[in-house]
C-alpha cells in the first residue's frame, strides 16, 4: 500500500515535487492545500488533477475544492505523512508551526522545507514526534539538496560531529563572489542580484544573516541535540564588506565568506570570515552552498551543492519521503 501524503503549500517546490512523485508507485498524493483552501481524496487525487497543479493551475479551480484553512485538513483528513511546504515565517513560525504540531500530535509523519518552526521551536517538534512515534524529516530546510542530516545521522553513526562551519546562504555568497571577481561595490552587486532574482527586494533577510542564522540553528539543534532558537545565533551581515577588504584578504591568501559556525558546546555564529585558500569553503562561489562537518574520528567532511531552487528542494523532500516510506514498509 502506498504512503498517503498531504502537501501544504502549492508553490514552486510543490510543483517540482509533484512532477517527480506522480511517477512513483510508493506514494499516493491524497491532498494539496494552499492559503485559500484544499483538495482532498482519501484514495488519492486524480493524476490529471495533480498534473494540472504541477503545471501551475490554482487548486481552487479543481473539483472538490474546500474553502477552509489548511489546518482543518491537517486535523481531519486521512493521510500518513504531511509535507509542509508553506512559506517560512521567522517571526512566529505560523501557520506552519500549528500545522506541524497538529500532524505530529496525530502521529502523522512530517517532512518539511519550512525553516520557521524548526528555527524557533525545534526541540518541541522533535519531542512531539518522538512522543507520538512519528518520523520527522527536514533535509530541505538547510542547503537545498545537500544531504546534511542524512550524512550526520546515517553515515556517521559510529562517529561524532564536534563542530561545523558552512556557507548556507546562496545570495550572500553570490554577492561576495561577484564583489571579489569583478571588484564591484556591495550596492552595485546587490542591485544586480535583485535584477537577477537572486536577492529579494528587501534583502535584509539574506544580507543581514537572518536566513543563515535560522539554518544554523536548525543544523546545530539537529546535530548537537540542542534546544536553541535562531535568535541566540550571534549574527553579522555582509553589507559593510568592501572590495578593498576582499583584495587585502586575497593578498594574504584568504577569501571572505559569510560563514555559519557552531560547535557542540553551544556556540553559534554567522559572520563574514577570512577563509584560507587551503579550506574547501574558500572555493565555493556563486549561489552554491557548502558545509564542513568536523568529526571526531573521520576529520573534516565537506558537502557542496545548490542551496535552493525548485528541483533541488523537491529532491531533498523526496529523499525524506522515500526514507519514511522505507522505514514504515510502504
Amino acid at each position, binding site marked *: 500500500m502506498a504512503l498517503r501524503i498531504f502537501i501544504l503549500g502549492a508553490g514552486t517546490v510543490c510543483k517540482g515535487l509533484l512532477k517527480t512523485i506522480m511517477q512513483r508507485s510508493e506514494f499516493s498524493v491524497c491532498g494539496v492545500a494552499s492559503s485559500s483552501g484544499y483538495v482532498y481524496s482519501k484514495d488519492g487525487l486524480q493524476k490529471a488533477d495533480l498534473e494540472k497543479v504541477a503545471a501551475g493551475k490554482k487548486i481552487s479551480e479543481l473539483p472538490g475544492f474546500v474553502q477552509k484553512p489548511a489546518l482543518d485538513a491537517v486535523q481531519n483528513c486521512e493521510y500518513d505523512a504531511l509535507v509542509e511546504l508553506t512559506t517560512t515565517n521567522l517571526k512566529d513560525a505560523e501557520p506552519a508551526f500549528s500545522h506541524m504540531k497538529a500532524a505530529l500530535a496525530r502521529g502523522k509523519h512530517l517532512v518539511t522545507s519550512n525553516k520557521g518552526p524548526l528555527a524557533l521551536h525545534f526541540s518541541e517538534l522533535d519531542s512531539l514526534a518522538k512522543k507520538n512515534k512519528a518520523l520527522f524529516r527536514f533535509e530541505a530546510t538547510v542547503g537545498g539538496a545537500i544531504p546534511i542530516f542524512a550524512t550526520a545521522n546515517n553515515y556517521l553513526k559510529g562517529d561524532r560531529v564536534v*563542530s561545523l562551519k558552512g556557507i548556507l546562504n546562496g545570495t550572500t555568497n553570490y554577492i561576495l563572489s561577484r564583489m571579489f571577481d569583478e571588484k564591484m561595490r556591495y550596492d552595485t552587486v546587490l542591485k544586480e542580484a535583485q535584477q537577477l532574482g537572486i536577492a529579494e527586494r528587501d534583502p535584509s533577510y539574506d544580507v543581514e544573516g537572518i536566513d543563515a542564522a535560522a539554518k544554523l540553528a536548525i543544523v546545530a539543534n539537529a546535530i548537537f541535540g540542542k534546544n536553541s532558537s535562531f535568535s541566540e545565533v550571534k549574527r553579522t551581515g555582509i553589507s559593510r564588506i568592501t572590495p*578593498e*577588504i576582499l583584495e*587585502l*584578504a586575497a593578498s*594574504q591568501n*584568504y577569501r571572505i565568506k559569510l560563514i555559519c559556525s557552531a560547535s557542540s558546546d553551544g556556540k553559534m555564529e554567522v559572520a*563574514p*570570515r*577570512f577563509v584560507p585558500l587551503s579550506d574547501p569553503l574558500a572555493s565555493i562561489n556563486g549561489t552554491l552552498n557548502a558545509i564542513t562537518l568536523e568529526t571526531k574520528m573521520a576529520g573534516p567532511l565537506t558537502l557542496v551543492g545548490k542551496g535552493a531552487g525548485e528541483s533541488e528542494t523537491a529532491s531533498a523532500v523526496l529523499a525524506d519521503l522515500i526514507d519514511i516510506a522505507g522505514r514504515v514498509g510502504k
Partner: protein
Amino acid sequence: MFNIGSKDALEKMGALLKEGSWRVLSLEKIAQFRRITLGLIGHIIRTKSVESLVNKVDALGANVSKFSVNMPNQSGESSALISFEAEDDEVIEKAMAEIENTCRQNDLLLIRAVD
C-alpha cells in the same frame, strides 16, 4: 645556522642530516608562534583608532607583522588588514580583547579567520 618552519620538518631534517653523516652541533626547538590575521572596516583613518591599536598590541608583546589600510575615498569607510604573531596564548588573548574593544568603541567591523 638556519631556521625550519615547523617542528615536524625540523625533526625530519635533523634525522636526514645525521643519516648523511653531517655533524649537527645544535638542534633547537623552534618557537611556536601563532599568527592571527584580521580585517577591519570603518572610519579607520578619521578616528586614528587603528594607529593607536597597533601600538597597544605591540606593547602587549605581540609582533605586528603586517598592517595595510585601503581608503577608497575621503567619505567612505576604509578597510584594513592586520597580522600579528605571538608565542604565548595569553598575549594573543589580550591582544584580541584590545582589538575587540577598539572595534566596539569606534564602530569598526572586525573580520576573523575561520578556526
